[in-house]
Structure formats: C-alpha cells, structure tokens
C-alpha cells in the first residue's frame, strides 16, 4: 500500500469536494423551496392539490435515488429530444448534462422528504395558536406567516440539517452520471491505479467526514440549545 498517492490525488479530490459542496448547497436550497410548496399542497383542502402532491411524495420515497438519477439523465434527454423533434424546436436535450441532471434529481428527491419535515413542523404548532389568531381576525395567510411559521421553523432546523448531511452523502450517486463530483474523481483515480486503491478510499472517506462531521456536531449543538430553550 503506497500512501504517497494521497499527496498526488489531493488537489483533484479537493476540487471534487468543492463540486460536492456546490451540488449540495444549490440542491438543498431548491429542495427547500419545492418542499414548502409540496407541503402546502399536501395539507390543502382541495383534493386536486393534495392528490398529486401525495402521489409525488409516495412515488419518490418508494423508488431508489439511482433510478431517479438515471431517469433524469438518460430519460429526460430522450423525452426532450423526442419533444423537440416532434415540435420542430431546437434540441432541448443539450440542456441536460451531468450538473443539471444531478441537481434536478437531488432537488426532486429531497423536496419529497423536506415536504414531510415541513408538514410535521406545521402540525407541531398547537391548533390553539391558529384558533386564537383566527378569533383575533387574522386571515389564514397572516396566521401562517406570523404565528405558525415563526414557531415551526426552530423545530424544523435539526431535521433539515440531518437531511443536508444525507444529501452530502447522496451527492455521491451523482458520480454515476457526471464526472466532477468527489466520488467521480475517486473512481477515476481508482481505475488508473488499480493495484493501490485503499489509500484513495481512505482519502475520499476522510474528505466526506470533514464535510459531514462538523455539520452533525452543529445539529447536535443546535438541538441541545433548542431543548434548553423550550
């Protein structure tokens, strides 16, 4: 086992780590937005909002992430290609590359999980708060923005941070369709150094630990502060 390969691979792996952070931060922000929309839809009194939202959440949670990645990368490009051909547009499939397909798959997958966290957070605020707000004459959206949301958000931060840690690890799956993530660099170096792969794995796992351990300590610290404050 030749550990000097770690020094040679380090710049490439750090570049991969930077890409991982970019993937995760952008996907998580978009997933939070889409998750909020989904949460509001799945709690709606209109079946035509609730139905599609719940079907979407159940389908996403019952299919593997890697299948969703393949569908986004290969499937979406095929669909866009056929669509562009039948409508005579420019080929829309050029917009599907490793970055867009990876971010799209991560966003669509994590929005389902964030929607469940949002819903749990909104339901954890006592109904009495909403009833008091409505009896004071606030309408439904004022109640949501000024009463429910400020009380729900601190409770939702730990699950969100935990989900971010899961996303840091699930971003590794983007490596099966793209070439710029940390796991892709690991794969590339592993193939070109077939006999001496263990140090590369150690380096890649250490870099992921550097990303995820501080985040989990932050989550635990925040949870302790929250429980002390309640």
């Amino acid at each position, binding site marked *: 086992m030749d550990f000097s390969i770690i020094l040679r691979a380090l710049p490439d792996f750090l570049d991969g780590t930077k890409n991982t952070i970019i993937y995760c931060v952008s996907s998580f922000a978009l997933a939070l937005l889409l998750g909020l929309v989904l949460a509001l839809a799945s709690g709606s009194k*209109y079946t035509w909002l609730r139905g599609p939202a719940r079907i979407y959440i159940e389908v996403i949670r019952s299919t593997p992430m890697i*299948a969703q990645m393949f569908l986004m990368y290969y499937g979406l490009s095929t669909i866009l290609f056929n669509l562009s051909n039948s409508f005579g547009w420019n080929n829309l499939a050029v917009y599907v590359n490793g970055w867009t397909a990876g971010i799209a798959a991560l966003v669509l997958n994590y929005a389902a999980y964030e929607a469940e966290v949002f819903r749990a957070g909104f339901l954890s605020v006592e109904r009495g708060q909403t009833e008091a707000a409505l009896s004071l004459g606030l309408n439904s959206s004022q109640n949501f923005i000024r009463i429910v949301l400020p009380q729900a958000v601190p409770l939702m931060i730990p699950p969100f941070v935990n989900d971010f840690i899961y996303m840091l*690890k699930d971003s590794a799956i983007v490596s099966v369709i793209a070439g710029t993530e940390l796991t892709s660099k690991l794969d590339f170096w592993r193939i070109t150094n077939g006999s001496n792969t263990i140090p590369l794995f150690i380096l890649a796992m250490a870099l992921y630990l550097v990303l995820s351990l501080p985040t989990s300590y932050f989550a635990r610290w925040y949870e302790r502060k929250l429980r002390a404050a309640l």
Partner: protein
Amino acid sequence: MIEPKIHDFGDGDPRVSVITHANQRSASRGWLVILNYVFYASVIAVVGGLVYYLYQFRDSITLFFPTLLAGAGTTIFLSISSMILAAIFGFIGALGRLSRFGPFRWLAAIYVEVIRGTPILIQLFLWGFGIRGLLEQVGFDPYTIVFNFMTILQSNSLVPNPNVVDAAFYGIMGLSFNYGAYLTEVFRTGIETVPIGQTEAGLSLGLNSRQILRHIVLPQAFRITIPPFANYFITLVQDSALLSAIGGALELQELTTTAATVSASNPNRQLFFYVFGALMFLAICYPLALLAHYLELRFAEAY
C-alpha cells in the same frame, strides 16, 4: 376541522391518528372545488396514458419481463440477507456502544461515526473493489465457501458462477456494514428508552444483568425498534439498486442492472425500461411502506 381516526387492534388500547389536512367542509369551499373533478379526470387520463405506453412496448415487455422478474428476485434476496446481517452487526454495535469497557465503546463509536458520515456508494466501492482486491491477494474465495456449503445441503446446482457469487458477497457485506451502523443507533435508542425502573426492578428481584437484558429489557426494546427497522428495510431495498454501480462487468443482475442491459442499444427502450424498473421498485416498496405505517400504529406507545 381535524378529525381523529381510531384504530382498534383488539389489544384493549385503541390508537388514535389524526387526519392531517384541512377538511373540505370548511366554510370557504369556493368554486375551486370544481377542479377536484378535473383532478379525477386527469388521474384517469394519466393511467390511460401509462397503459398505452406499456402497450406500445408490449413486445419488449413479453420478451424481457422474466429477466426483470429474476432481477427483482435477486434484489429481494440481497435485501433480506443484508438486513439479517445488518441486524447482527447492529446488535453487536449496540452492545459495544452500551458497554462498560472503554475500548469497545470507542470502537463502536468510531464504527458508527465513520460509516454514517461517508456515502454508501463509496463504502460499496470500498468493499467491491478495495477489500475484494486485498482478500483476493490473500486467497479468500467466497465462491468456494458458498459452493461447499451448498454441496452439504445437496443443492450446489443453485450456485451461480463465481463472478456473481463474489459480487453478491461483497455487495451484501458492504450493505450490511453500512446499515449495521444505522441499526446500532436504532437498537441503542430502543434499549435506552426502556425505563431504568425496569432494570432496577429486575435487580431487586435478584436477576443478574444477562437475565435482565434477555427477559425484561429486550422484549420491550423490540417493540420500540420495529418501526424504524421497517423504514430502514425499505431504504435498504432501494440502496440495493446501488449495487448496479459496482457490478463493473454487470455480473450481479439485480433489477437496475437488468433494466440497463436489456435496453442498452435503443434510447427510447432505455427510457421505457428505466420507467418500468422504477414501477417494479414502486410495486415492491409501496406495500412495504404501507406495512411500515401499519407497524408504526400497531407498536405505538401509550403515554
């Protein structure tokens, strides 16, 4: 209004669950409710479209459905064996985390933190390429062991070729090592959630700690750990699809690999088989999710 729904499992303790969306009979019903019927119509249209899509590819389906079914069978076999092994690893890990002996505690803590902090894909690569290379140099051959074992059971014709057995072995090891770490935390939480008064009562009755664990703590902890265990099993079934990424020579024909190989030449067929594979995963995982939901209600604690 939010109405509670009461489940009676016949054990004298009705569970109450709450329907968590606004009821339609609220005052501001509005004209938007008409769109409900648009939704129902669109569901029928989507289902019809799906049936038409399947009909378009009926030749491919009749040709390749048995292969896909075999792939699904492999997936289920891999998931169940990985879960059993992961439960064993998790139990050992939980005992380690709760041990009075320092180094066992630290070893278990390192195991859990490292495994939970790194992606499962890298761990599968590590097992499927890194550790496999090391063990092959040492001369460890899973195929020979499995073959000899199956010969004792008189069924050695069931053993597939060495590449498949090796890939399956290292895949199962990778998956169970990963899920063992998560199950360690589940089991540890389950054991710690049993009130300390139970242990104290056992001690006051003169039981030693092994008897307390076996007769008092573990039966109660079992009830608490069933719902997260079921949810992790569903996630495990989906993560077994990742094994298609380490099957470098497509040795391990589980569902995702099969879907990729039967359609490699034609992008339209590829899309169809990825959708079909996802539907098969749905058919496996959605009933499991309903079962997990039922278990969550059934084993809910009364406070």
